[in-house]
């Protein structure tokens, strides 16, 4: 019986604790990704809390905390969508790999920016560094409604090649604004 044996046990404990944490997160992620509740179900849940017993088990947030949290998040989201003009209509993700420091998820995202719609698929790799998390996009695929336009398709393919999602959104935003502005101007002249 010596320190050597102690150390072996302690190492195993640490490795088991890490594995458990990872498995729990994997389970949670998978649950989240494969579940879907409609807006009505969500509305009903918000209402049903009104009558529910306040004394929930400890360690859980109170129903009013949850409702308040959800409202605050939805307000933020609504503001961002209005401000940037970018609206996400559908988002699904699937965790492809999860280890201690690396998470890889496949995302499928559709939405529109003003009147221009897009569909995206990409893989997002997140690496936990000492201080922060770094994110890298790979396998980017973009489908745009106005894809027949030559300029748009050139832009889309060069953005896809470089995995440059940020530039895609920035350019989409300014192009959509210009497009919208032009459309309004034409409308204006038509009315006249």
């Amino acid at each position, binding site marked *: *019986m010596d320190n050597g044996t*102690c150390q072996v*046990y*302690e190492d*195993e*404990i640490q490795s*088991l*604790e890490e*594995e*458990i944490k990872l*498995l*729990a997160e*994997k*389970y949670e992620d*998978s649950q*989240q990704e*494969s579940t879907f*509740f409609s807006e009505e179900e*969500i509305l*009903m*849940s*918000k209402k*049903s*809390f009104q009558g*529910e017993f306040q004394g*929930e088990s400890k360690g*859980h947030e109170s*129903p009013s905390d*949850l*409702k308040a*949290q*959800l409202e605050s*998040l*939805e307000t*933020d*989201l609504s*503001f*961002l969508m209005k*401000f*940037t003009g970018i609206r*996400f209509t559908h*988002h699904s*993700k699937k965790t492809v790999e999860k280890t201690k420091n690396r998470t890889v998820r496949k995302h499928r995202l559709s939405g529109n920016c003003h009147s221009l719609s897009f569909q995206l698929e990409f893989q*997002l790799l997140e690496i936990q560094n000492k201080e922060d998390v*770094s*994110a*890298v*996009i790979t396998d*980017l695929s973009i489908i745009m409604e106005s894809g027949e336009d030559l300029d748009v398709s050139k832009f889309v393919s060069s953005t896809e090649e*470089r*995995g*440059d*999602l*940020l*530039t895609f*959104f*920035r350019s989409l*935003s*300014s192009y959509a*604004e210009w497009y919208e502005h032009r459309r309004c101007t034409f409308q204006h002249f038509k009315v006249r």
Partner: protein
Amino acid sequence: GVFAHLEMLESRAYQAAVKQEEREQQEEKLAKLQARVQELRLQRDELRAKVDLQQKRQLGKGGAVSDPAQPSARAVLEWKIKSVKATLQLFYLTGISGKLTKRGVCFCISTAYEGTYLDSYYLDLLAKPEVQIHRHSIPIFIPLEQIAKKYLQTDIRRFLSVLLDHLNAYVGRRYQADQLQEHFSDQIEGTLQRNSLCNLLVFNYAVSSKSKTFPFSVRLLYGDLCCSLPTEVVVSCAPDAPTALAEAAAAHSELFRLMALHKAFRSFSSAEESVD
């Protein structure tokens, strides 16, 4: 004699007792650790089984048919909260995200070079009495005040857009220089000199061909702060260098003007390899 002998026996007994106690403590500690290991192993195995079952179900394979009980209102709300959080995180990928505050809004500006997301900066704005910057983490060498003066009051989207262009370009230039130092350090001679804005780079590098090395020195000026490609490139070699070298310098100069720094290096490194 007798007392000394008694003392010795006492001391021996005492030491034996101490050792015995140590041994017992050690055994107890070990037993506790063993128990903990068993407990964790069990927990881990249960989780593994849970995850496997979940995966089987999702693939439509066998596994027990367990109709999940009607989800509680709490579960539904918790799901929705996670879902909205995930959508908010997506905005991070677009370059502009943030949250509303009591007195205004705190924007988070993200930057990226091609597919790699780099630094993010925050900008805390107050809405009243007029739009103003409360706090921020924008580096001091970015002309924030200038940009704010021009656009903040009249067109806040434009303000953010211009700021984003500056920040992304800065981060892009810095990334290129970092990549160069990381991947081509063997070709760079001495230190790569750069300013904090990373819009002026000066360094010496060497290209080898047919077991000879040819030194070049280069000065890159990025005159457009919203651009991550240089506006002025000067590549020079030794004055007595052969014409082939001068031609190479001109070719390199073109490359630096047209493409990212580390990509330009990659391109003439592989060109050299193929020549040999």
